């Protein structure tokens, strides 16, 4: 991390500290830890808040246990705790509750002064957090004592889950000046915020890396590795923020939080395993796909077990996670070996990132079983850094480096490809001219709209010295650069064609295309138009042309490039001045709208007397799915 980044981290912390210090400048006051003996009783009775209630028959408990009830002995349900203590002589008397991981209500001398969550009838509780409640004057008396009663709902599995966090705080209830209690709590919250700050930054980093990876996948759908990596990092980042929200707000209570969190972690683990699998092969190996599903199911079951309040199910499922973690680590090792061995650009950086992440996972979550004294977090200035966070951060930085490299390479390749397509388009413009020269006596009108930069449709208008004109319109099955290359081949053949007879022209083209169409074919319509209005037509599987708005059925041979022995019968018709012949490609009749409806023959026929551009525009507006070509030839009045 560079000096600039360090400054970025330190600056908000200093500002935060200053603000907290100003807000909670500690006045001289008195506080009293309530670490004496508490009476407690399972059950629920509003009478137990009454200061005159006799709790002599209740069990007794020390204060630390108040904040951390041993789950082995205690079941979920409602409990009441009571203690009678001398009242501190302060004007702003308040009660400070430790970070209890359950819902509770606090009564002082029988009056409710505050609480967190809902105890009953529908318990809802939030992540453990200290709270301070002001004791109003009407809850105090002149006896010099206060009776504090706390009504607590303790959750089932979730209680145990959070017991670890509660243990480490070790705070028990305190009675005293509201000002000093608030100051103490604020100081501890500030320390917690500082603890959480690295996690927030790492969550942010994960989100950025994840979004970069997803953007890369959006641009190149052939690389699913970016999808899995993007999802894994986005879920990592999301989980980080989810934890932050849960521990600092009451936006979401514990049970829904655990369900959401388990879902996010399940998605994270599944995506991460698929990413590791995709490092081994483009389609993750079967074992990786199975592991992803099993791992996701196991974590989802953890959430379900907590929601159901079933400790036995929770423990059973949680124990199996060791196996899935070991399997993930082994898969990661295979991914690292594969990445390094393929010598892909930045493969070593990627391998370092994956390795760091895996080591941190094992360190943070499992190494304690064998080496309980190994530290899992380190202090760096005011911050506490967890090993798992450091591993994720290093992984994210490495992958960011790799992704940026790939992003730049992809952009470079796209630019090169774009230049090549542009060159191909210009060549095609020369081969298929936008404004072809006809012959005196005929007006030729054309429209050509490839579905990509270059197309598989073509037309040629070849005038001869005697005033006749050969018109050829065709369509290569398929589209794009491959079809455009075949168009160039066909146009070259047509320009060197010696015969003017449509049947011969098609036969010659057919033979020239045999073995060249890669399993496809070429449809082609051909018309020789003479000065006296004689029109000879032949058809190789092309859509029938239209004459003055009516379909002209020209008997067809098979499309070109399929059979050497194909023949093409000729049809002769006479055109009067004003007569119009219209050729279209299948991109017109097979234009499809969003509902899947075809433009069809009826619409095409109805428009066939219009200008070429009008027909083409209508088909394009309907929903272009293929190259569109329209050629109209109108015999002019003498």
């Amino acid at each position: 991390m560079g000096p600039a980044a360090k400054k970025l981290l330190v600056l908000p912390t200093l500002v935060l500290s200053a603000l907290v210090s100003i807000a909670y400048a500690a006045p001289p006051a008195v506080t009293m830890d309530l670490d004496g003996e508490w009476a407690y009783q399972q059950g629920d009775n509003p009478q137990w808040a009454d200061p005159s209630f006799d709790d002599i028959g209740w069990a007794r408990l020390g204060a630390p246990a108040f904040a951390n009830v041993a789950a082995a002995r205690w079941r979920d349900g409602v409990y009441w705790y009571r203690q009678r203590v001398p009242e501190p002589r302060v004007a702003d008397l308040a009660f400070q509750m430790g970070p209890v991981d359950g819902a509770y209500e606090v009564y002082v001398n029988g009056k409710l002064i505050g609480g967190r969550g809902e105890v009953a009838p529908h318990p809802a509780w939030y992540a453990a957090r200290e709270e301070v409640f002001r004791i109003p004057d009407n809850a105090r008396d002149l006896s010099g004592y206060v009776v504090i009663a706390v009504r607590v709902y303790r959750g089932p599995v979730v209680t145990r889950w959070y017991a670890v966090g509660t243990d480490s705080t070790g705070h028990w209830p305190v009675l005293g000046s509201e000002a000093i209690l608030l100051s103490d709590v604020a100081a501890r919250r500030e320390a917690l915020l500082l603890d959480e700050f690295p996690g927030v930054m790492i969550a942010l980093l994960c989100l950025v890396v994840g979004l970069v990876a997803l953007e890369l996948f959006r641009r190149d759908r052939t690389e699913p590795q970016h999808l899995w990596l993007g999802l894994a990092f986005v879920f990592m980042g999301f989980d980080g923020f989810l934890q932050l929200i849960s521990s600092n707000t009451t936006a979401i209570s514990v049970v829904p939080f655990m369900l959401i969190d388990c879902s996010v972690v399940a998605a994270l683990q599944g995506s991460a395993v698929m990413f590791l699998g995709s490092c081994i092969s483009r389609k993750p190996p079967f074992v990786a796909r199975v592991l992803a599903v099993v791992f996701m199911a196991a974590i989802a079951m953890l959430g379900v077990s907590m929601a159901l309040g079933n400790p036995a199910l929770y423990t059973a499922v949680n124990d199996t996670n060791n196996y899935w973690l070991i399997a993930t680590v082994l898969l990661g090792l295979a991914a690292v070996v594969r990445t390094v061995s393929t010598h892909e650009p930045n493969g070593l950086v990627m391998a370092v990132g994956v390795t760091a992440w895996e080591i941190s996972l094992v360190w943070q979550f499992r190494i304690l079983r064998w080496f309980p004294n190994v530290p899992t977090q380190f202090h760096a200035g005011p911050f506490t850094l967890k090993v798992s966070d450091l591993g994720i951060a290093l992984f994210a930085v490495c992958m960011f480096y790799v992704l940026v490299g790939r992003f730049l390479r992809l952009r470079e390749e796209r630019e090169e490809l774009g230049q090549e397509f542009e060159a191909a388009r210009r060549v095609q413009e020369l081969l298929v001219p936008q404004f072809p020269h006809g012959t005196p006596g005929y007006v030729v009108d054309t429209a050509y709209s490839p579905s990509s930069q270059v197309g598989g449709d073509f037309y040629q208008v070849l005038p001869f010295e005697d005033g006749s004109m050969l018109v050829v319109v065709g369509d290569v099955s398929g589209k794009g650069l491959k079809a455009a290359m075949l168009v160039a081949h066909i146009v070259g053949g047509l320009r060197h064609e010696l015969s003017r007879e449509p049947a011969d022209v098609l036969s010659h083209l057919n033979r020239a295309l045999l073995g060249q169409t890669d399993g496809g074919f070429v449809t082609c319509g051909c018309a020789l138009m003479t000065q006296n209005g004689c029109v000879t037509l032949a058809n190789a599987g092309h859509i029938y042309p239209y004459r003055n708005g009516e379909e002209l059925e020209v008997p067809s041979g098979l499309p070109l490039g399929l059979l050497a022995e194909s023949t093409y019968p000729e049809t002769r018709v006479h055109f009067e001045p004003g007569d119009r012949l219209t050729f279209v490609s299948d991109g017109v009749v097979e234009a499809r709208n969003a509902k899947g409806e075809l433009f069809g023959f009826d619409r095409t026929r109805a428009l066939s007397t219009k200008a070429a551009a009008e027909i083409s525009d209508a088909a394009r507006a309907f929903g272009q799915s293929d190259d569109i070509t329209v050629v109209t030839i109108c015999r002019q009045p003498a």
Partner: protein
Amino acid sequence: MQTDTKVKVDQAQDAKGDSITILRFSGDISSTSREAVIGTYQSLSPHDHRQIVLDFSKVEYLNSSGIALVIQVLIDAAKAGQKIHISGLTPHFQKVFTMVGITRYAPLFSDETAAGAAF
């Protein structure tokens, strides 16, 4: 959005008791359908499958590349001496098949029953 081509091979008999093989296609037929169209046809022994119906009644979309695959099947079947009938095409594609000259190799029928009865 394009959907995958699926094909189901069924057997039936004509009035004379001779076997008819029915290839029921569904989904879209395009350049990516080579295995479904050509592959399925080639998996049928020409000796055992003399009469074949290609049924397109469940086909949602058929482009020129898909038609090229059908023509390839028809040419191969003609060389192998197999008879092929085509059924279930929409009026639009009946017209397209006619225009590309497919009817020289295989007659078109409105449904599978008519196609089978015509052998």
